Structure formats: structure tokens, C-alpha cells
């Protein structure tokens, strides 16, 4: 009986492996093709499209991206926006989550419900009022338009509050006996206590802001102020005929983030499945 079952399992597993392997090849193919094309000349891409690997290996596409466009400014803009926003969101989410979780005050329930409601606000439907507000503030075509409005993150507050709710009472009681200040309780007890939540929040906000296209599209105008995703579409329309450079730009934008993901994939996957289940 056991033997028959193992044999059946082996069959299922082999079939599963073959399916998954084929799917994995299909999933990676666009990456392979992008990289391969980025090392061909545009002429080779168009004249001999069937070459799997470049016949004449060239880095001219990469040289063009790095020298003929403000690529490093774009990179710097993206880094500044993403890092500042992520740090601020980690701080605001955890401290607001802490207050909503552990303090009794009159508007507590109301504010938490309000924050949950803001989580539903669809960005696609808010393009126009957001644009009008940013222009009125005088922030149009300025990097600050991407940074300041995202400081409060409803999802982050929700996630942190859930985790702080679960921290054991005794932790806080002993701190109160020591007469520790509120802020001290926050950074001595709350922050270390919710590290997994902060980890997955970091991944979410970092990815969301790093990859955001719609917001910079609406708020920014000059090429030098752009962040990478907007710059990508700008570059590809500026160099419509230069496929090689376009693929090089796409590779430069996609590969570093992919490498970071592959190195930290365990934490990524854990963080994402954790929030999905919460």
C-alpha cells in the first residue's frame, strides 16, 4: 500500500516538476531576450531577429544610456524619493499605530476607521484633484511633490497597529513602572517588538514608490527631475528607433532591483505572504 502510494506521488511530482519548469522558462524568457537584445546593435536586432545571442557583442546601447541621458540624476531622484519616503512611512506608521493601539482617547475609534477608509482611495480616480492640489501648492515639477504627500500610509498604520495589539501587556506595564517616557516606550519596546511588520512594510513601500509611474507622470515635467519609471517611458519615446539603447535602459532599471530581490528573496516572500494573511 505504502509502496503504491509513493509511486503515485512520484508520478505526480514528476509531472508537476515538468509543468513548473516549462512555466519558469517562459517566465524568464523576456528577461533573457531583453538582455540579449541590449548587447546587440539595433541593426542586428532588426536584420537578424532570430539570433538568440548577439553575433556581434556590443555595449554601445549602455554607453548611450549612460552618456546621452541624465541617467544618474534619474537614479538619484529615485533613490532620494524612495529612501526618504520609506523611512518616514516606517516612522509614522509605527508611532501612529502605537498611539491607536495603546492609548485611550476620545476620537481613537473614529480616527482608526477614517484611516481604514483612506486605504480604499483609488489612485487612478484621484489623478485630477491630486494634480490640482499639487499645482496650487506650487509643487508642480518639483521632487517634493512625490515625497511629502505620501508621508502617511494607511496600510502601514493598519499593519503596525495589528502587530502592536498582539504585543504582551507585561512589556508595557514594566516600562510604566520604570516611569519611562512615551517616546522611550515607543523606541525601546514597540519598535523592536514589531520588527517583522516593519520588514514587510519596508518591502512594500520601497517597491511601490520605486516602481510608481502614474504619480510622477502627473506631477513632473522636466527630464532632469524624473524618477526611473517615468524616465524609462521618456527615454523609449525619445529613442524610438534605437532598440538597442532602449533595451539597455530597461536592463539598467530592472536588473539591479532583481539582483537585490534574489539575494533577499526569503525575506521578500515571507513579508508578502505575512501581510496577505494578516
Amino acid at each position, binding site marked *: 500500500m505504502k509502496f503504491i502510494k509513493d509511486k503515485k506521488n512520484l508520478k505526480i511530482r514528476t509531472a*508537476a516538476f515538468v509543468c*513548473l519548469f516549462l*512555466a*519558469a522558462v517562459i*517566465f524568464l*524568457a*523576456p528577461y533573457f*531576450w*531583453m538582455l540579449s*537584445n541590449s548587447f546587440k546593435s539595433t541593426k542586428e536586432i532588426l536584420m537578424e*531577429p*532570430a539570433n538568440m545571442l548577439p553575433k556581434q557583442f556590443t555595449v554601445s546601447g549602455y554607453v548611450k544610456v549612460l552618456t546621452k541621458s541624465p541617467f544618474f540624476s534619474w537614479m538619484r531622484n529615485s533613490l532620494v524619493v524612495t529612501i526618504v519616503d520609506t523611512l518616514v512611512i516606517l516612522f509614522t506608521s509605527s*508611532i*501612529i499605530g502605537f*498611539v491607536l493601539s*495603546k*492609548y485611550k*482617547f476620545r476620537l481613537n475609534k473614529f*480616527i482608526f476607521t477614517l484611516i481604514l477608509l*483612506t*486605504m*480604499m482611495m*483609488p*489612485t*487612478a*480616480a*484621484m*489623478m*485630477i*484633484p491630486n*494634480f*490640482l*492640489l499639487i*499645482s496650487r501648492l506650487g509643487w508642480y515639477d518639483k521632487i517634493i511633490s512625490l515625497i511629502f504627500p505620501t508621508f*502617511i500610509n494607511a496600510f502601514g498604520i493598519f499593519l503596525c497597529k495589528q502587530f502592536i495589539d498582539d504585543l504582551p501587556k507585561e512589556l*508595557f506595564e514594566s516600562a*510604566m513602572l520604570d516611569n519611562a517616557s*512615551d517616546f522611550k516606550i515607543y523606541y525601546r519596546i514597540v519598535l523592536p517588538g514589531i520588527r517583522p511588520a516593519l520588514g514587510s512594510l519596508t518591502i512594500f513601500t520601497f517597491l511601490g514608490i520605486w*516602481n510608481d*509611474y*502614474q504619480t510622477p*507622470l502627473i506631477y513632473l515635467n522636466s527630464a532632469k527631475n524624473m524618477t526611473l*519609471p517615468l524616465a*524609462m*517611458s521618456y527615454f*523609449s519615446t525619445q529613442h524610438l528607433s534605437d*532598440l538597442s539603447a532602449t*533595451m539597455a535602459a*530597461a536592463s539598467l532599471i*530592472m536588473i539591479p*532591483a*532583481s539582483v537585490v*530581490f*534574489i539575494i533577499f528573496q526569503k525575506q521578500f*516572500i515571507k513579508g*508578502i*505572504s*505575512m501581510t*496577505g*494573511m494578516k
Partner: protein
Amino acid sequence: MKNKKFVWAVMLPAMLHILVFIIVPIGIGLVVSFFNYNPLSSDNTFIGLENFRKLFLDADFRLAMKNTLIFVLATVFLNIALSLLTAQLISYFKSNKVRSFFRMVFFLPCIAPMVATSVVFSRSIFPTATGFLNMMLNRIGLPSVNWLGDPKVIMISLIIYTLWVDVGYNIVLFSAGIDGIPAYVYEAADLDGAGEWRKFRKVTLPLLGRSFQFVIVQTLISHFQMFAQFSVLILKDGPQNSGLVLSRYIYKTAFEYKDMGYASAVSMVLFIIIIILSFIEQKKHNVDWEY
């Protein structure tokens, strides 16, 4: 705890921020939809519900609505089916290395900015003569397809791309959900002589319960708002607007035609769809599942 000073030092700036950047814009959006509003013109008149009346007569709006619904329903259905199947296949492996390898590969496209992958698909994968996809089709003896130029095909191309770029997220979620189902449940099903399909239907699906609903609603919400591929992967919304969706229609009307009043009315429609979906989700949140 109750230190009033600390509470308000934290909450006051937070509430101000929410007021200015979320509540005020909702108000602006609603007000603008009652105006004939062009940011470049000084003459912006109040026209009441005229913009909403126009919605019913506007063939482009109807087309955008139809395309959005087709895209969302097809993509979400295929996404859920494929991600469940893949998560189930991954769960057959005991080795953590094999499992995390596959999860990693399928999740990889979710990491990249959609603009960048859209550019790759539009310039290197889908082109008729030089694209990778047709080359592969030809190699196995199938004819080339005009992926981006044929109004009947363009939605299929967009769905293929969106599945590739987004399915990994749900694979990871379902995978975690299936891992959370205790082994003894399956052992009991084995003892009853249940086949694979039966186990999947009678054990896995019901026990995934909560995460299943969460994933479906979240996927619906995000797909209704998708934007990047519709403005970068296809050119000018495709032949005869065959790839025009609501988010793109709002953008075009507001920022290319500068008709912000009417675009706000279209936004309100999208806004209401998303809010309804979110409320369904909130309701479901109250249902708790225990194994």
C-alpha cells in the same frame, strides 16, 4: 495609557496630513465634476450634472468601460486559476529549495517597474516581424500574429502581459495559504481515498477561505486601476481605441484634452466601482477562519 500631550503630538500632524492630501482632494474631485473645468482657461462655469449626463451619450466612455470590464474579468479569472494551480503544484515538493526557487522565478516580474517590462514587451516581445513571441510560434510551425496592430488581438496581448507581470504575487499568497493547511487534513482525505482533484476542491479551496476572498478582491481592485501597460505597451490606445480603458481615458481627457470637469465625472465612476469592491472586502474581513 493616556498621556494627552503625546497622543496629540502624534495625531494632530497626522490628521492634518490626511485632511490636506486625502479628504480635500476627494472634495475637489467631486466639485470639479460639476464644472466645465479647464486649468488653462479662466472661464470655468458651473454646469451641474451635465458632465454625468454626457457619460451616457459618450461612445468612447462606453468603449472604455467595456474594455475595462473585459480586461478585468478575463485577467482576474485567469490570474486566480493559474496562481492556484501553480501554488498547488509547488506544494507537491517537500524540498524548500525547490519551492522557493519556483516562487522566486514567478515573483521576479512583480519586482520590476511595469513601465520597463511594458517597454520590453512592446519593443522586443510582441512586434510582428522581429518579436520574440512570433519567432517562437514560427519555430514550432505556427503562423505569426499581429499582437499589437489587430484590434481583435490587442486585448489578448495585454492580458498575456498582465498575467506574466502580476501572477507571481498571488502565487506567493496562495502558496503561503496552502502551506498553512495542516498535513493531517490531507492524510485524512488520503485515507478516504480522495483523488487529487477531489482533495483540491474539498480540502484546499474551502480551507483557503479567507485568503481566497482577500486575493480575489485585491486583484480586482488593482486590475481596475491598471495604467502603465495601457499607456506604454500599446500606442495611442491601440487601433480604433481597442485598448482604451477607464484609467487611461481619465488621463487622456484630463491631461491631453484638458477637460478636467468631464474627466472628474469619469473618475467618479471608477471611484464608486473601487469603493464598492472595498466594502465587500471589509465585510469579508469580519469572517474569521480557524482550522
